[in-house]
């Protein structure tokens, strides 16, 4: 009657080891770029070690390499056991594993080389991005086929969270990676300006929701009851908060765009749903914490439970802070500051990191059939990691709120109290050191865990086999028909369940994004808005390549102090030809939306060579290589052709004469610089294209082309 089979534990081990390896890389990069903010000299003066290129590598490594592999380890381990079957295909599992590692290596090579789309957490250029889409299909096929061949009719709550993850990430990633290639390593997104911003933050926020939240809740619903040896507090609550979470999360993206050129109604929808999110989020936290009822004495002794309890508490904090920051008046203060960076790390270090640590300490002894080498070391890791996280969070709360208040401070006459941006930076540099110390602590704890786990694995008996199991097969006729009770029926029908989940997330998607297609991206055709010249466009790509958007915004919010500091607030039309948009999300340096014409060309040249010559105290890296690397003029014609295809109104002649025009414009700027003492031949260098772009910013508005 009963089938005998073995779980594929090897694949769980592989993903777990990859998690531990990439986690170290992601954290080390984090400590490095945190130190770069505290002391600019750590940028080392090299292109591939400068902050703008390493920051995307850090975020991608943390999200997709560390958390991603951790999630896969959890899914492969728990799904097989919950479904009472081996994964459908060992081959697909391995294609998924090795493919995912190859993508990570490709990211680690291309991002420091400056090959990037320039959209946060979606930086990977199109060949890698589409490899991710393909691998996701491999993973999905393997997972859903495993559901089909399962031996347990009922789908446990963790499985639901995995389904929501797989389906939603597919929709998000495909939608946000629709790009037209210019060359093998350069592409432009089909969306522009406001529409691109809305799609990007719909993607960006839901990356938080469906890579860093739903799979981790699934993980929590499996590993926490297992470790606590207690059933989840309320199975009913898990159902209610699952459905409400997936339905509400998908709408919250616009809270990243408050007071911007995004239409007010879309902002309000985003705020309303973000506020609602606290209920399903706290549903998960409460369900997790109350699962430990009657087991709190064990939390004192067992590091696994310590990590889970702290993770859930950080999750509760982050999901309280998120809705708080989504309130418009709080966003006015916190947006663009380090408060947001702190908020993200509350989730990443506290919630995702600690969940993975708890899982690793529980899983390694079971997968390798060996007791943990040292419980004491694991407890030490907990306290070091906890102290590191708190140090990190508190320093950035203080830094963010301090800087936000300084930006907005006006005196009785209505003048800015701190008109020099660099003044507000210098005030928080000491806190950058504290933040770095917090990160370093967290990293030290991590290393302690690595030592502990390596020593555990080394003591493992030779020839540990995949775990054997047995379960009666499901009679095919009964699949999907569990005595007519719809709820059980729903759980017995993975296909239907998937469709319903998809429907829940598509509602938010369609309602928020569809209108942008019908309304010309929220920006009416405006003759006063001119497309970039070829050289400016090329300079814009250099701006993207160097990751300038990681520290500079191009979106002046409609707030009095902001308008005083940077000029008239940004209009939707101004970025209507921007593929991709470069509104940014963080102001480590000032906003650049209206920087064009503010300084002479020579100022920009000298500033890029050595920022501190012109802005004493500046923490910006120097970009001296831009004066040594030659501009690739030939590619400009192809760039304009692609832009024309995307609907940017270039004439045929603009494309045909693109290279000549660009050379002429470069000569004009180069001659001007040479006349002021810059070395001859500068017109052929990349710096000239970048200056052309920077001087162009805000020009349409300045010339009265935008109302």
């Amino acid at each position, binding site marked *: *009657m*009963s089938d*005998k089979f073995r*779980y594929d534990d090897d694949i769980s081990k592989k993903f777990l080891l990859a998690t531990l390896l990439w986690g170290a890389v992601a954290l080390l990069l984090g400590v490095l770029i945190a130190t770069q903010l505290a002391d600019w000299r750590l940028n080392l003066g090299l292109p591939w070690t400068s902050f703008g290129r390493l920051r995307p590598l850090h975020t991608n490594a943390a999200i997709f390499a560390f958390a991603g592999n951790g999630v896969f380890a959890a899914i492969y381990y728990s799904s097989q*056991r*919950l479904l009472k079957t081996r994964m459908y295909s060992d081959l697909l599992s391995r294609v998924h594993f090795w493919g995912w590692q190859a993508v990570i290596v490709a990211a680690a090579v291309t991002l420091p080389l400056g090959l990037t789309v320039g959209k946060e957490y979606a930086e990977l250029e199109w060949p890698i991005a589409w490899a991710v889409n393909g691998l996701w299909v491999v993973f999905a096929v393997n997972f859903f086929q495993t559901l089909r061949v399962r031996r*347990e009719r*009922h789908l*446990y*709550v*963790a499985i639901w969270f995995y389904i929501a993850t797989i389906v939603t990430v597919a929709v998000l990633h495909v939608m946000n990676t629709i790009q037209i290639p210019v060359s093998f390593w350069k592409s432009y997104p089909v969306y522009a300006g406001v529409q691109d911003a809305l799609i990007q933050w719909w993607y960006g926020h839901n990356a938080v929701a469906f890579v860093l939240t739903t799979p981790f809740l699934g993980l929590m619903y*499996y590993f926490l*009851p*297992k470790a606590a*040896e*207690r*059933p*989840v507090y*309320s*199975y*009913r609550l898990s*159902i209610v908060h699952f459905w409400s979470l997936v*339905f509400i999360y998908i709408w919250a993206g616009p809270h990243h765009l408050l007071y911007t050129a995004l239409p007010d109604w879309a902002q309000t929808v985003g705020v309303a749903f973000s506020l609602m999110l606290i209920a399903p989020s706290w549903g998960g936290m409460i369900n997790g914490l109350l699962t430990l009822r009657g087991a709190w004495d064990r939390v004192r002794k067992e590091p696994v439970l310590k990590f889970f309890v702290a993770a859930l508490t950080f999750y509760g904090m982050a999901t309280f802070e998120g809705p708080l920051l989504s309130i418009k008046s709080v966003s006015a203060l916190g947006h663009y500051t380090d408060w947001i960076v702190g908020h993200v790390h509350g989730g990443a270090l506290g919630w995702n990191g600690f969940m993975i640590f708890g899982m690793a300490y529980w899983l390694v002894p079971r997968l390798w059939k060996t007791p943990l080498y040292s419980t004491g070391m694991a407890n030490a890791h907990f306290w070091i990691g906890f102290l590191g996280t708190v140090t990190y969070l508190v320093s950035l709360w203080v830094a963010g709120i301090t800087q936000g208040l300084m930006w907005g401070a006006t005196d009785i006459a209505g003048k800015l109290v701190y008109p020099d941006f660099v003044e507000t930076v210098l005030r928080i540099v000491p806190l950058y050191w504290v933040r770095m110390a917090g990160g370093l602590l967290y990293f030290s704890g991590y290393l302690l865990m690595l030592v502990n786990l390596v020593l555990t694995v080394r003591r493992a008996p030779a020839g540990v086999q995949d*775990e*054997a*199991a*047995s*379960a*009666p097969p499901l009679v095919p006729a009964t699949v999907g028909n569990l005595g007519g*009770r*719809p*709820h*059980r029926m*729903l759980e017995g029908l993975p296909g239907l369940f998937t469709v*319903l989940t998809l*429907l*829940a997330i598509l*509602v938010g998607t*369609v*309602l928020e994004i*569809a*209108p942008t297609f*019908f*309304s010309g991206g929220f920006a009416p055709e405006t003759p006063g808005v001119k497309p970039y010249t070829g050289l400016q466009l090329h300079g814009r790509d250099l701006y993207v390549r160097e990751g300038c958007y990681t520290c500079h915004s191009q979106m002046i919010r409609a707030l009095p102090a902001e308008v005083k500091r940077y000029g008239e607030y940004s209009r939707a039309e101004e970025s209507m030809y921007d593929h991709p948009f470069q509104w940014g999300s963080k102001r480590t340096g000032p906003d650049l939306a209206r920087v064009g014409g503010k300084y002479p060309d020579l100022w920009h040249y000298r500033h890029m060579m050595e920022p501190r010559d012109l802005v004493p105290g500046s923490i910006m890296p120097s970009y001296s290589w831009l004066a040594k690397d030659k501009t690739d003029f030939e590619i400009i014609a192809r760039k304009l052709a692609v832009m024309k295809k995307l609907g940017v109104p270039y004439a045929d002649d603009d494309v045909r004469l693109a290279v000549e025009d660009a050379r002429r414009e470069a000569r004009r700027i180069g001659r001007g610089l040479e006349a002021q003492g810059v070395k001859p031949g500068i017109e052929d260098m990349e710096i000239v294209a970048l200056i052309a772009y920077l001087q162009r910013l805000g020009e349409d508005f300045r010339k009265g082309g935008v109302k």
Partner: protein
Amino acid sequence: MSLLYLLVPMALILGFCFLAGFIFAASRGQFEDLETPAHRMLLPESTPPSETTER
């Protein structure tokens, strides 16, 4: 503002679908037996063959 002519009907239709789905689920006992699954996942992974013959 012409967007509202598209948005409001879409919101109403989709909202109605969800409401209908919820009423259907609730009236058909969607929320019954929410105890066993939580306990079942705690059972040991491998059970001796003799215990696995029940349906």
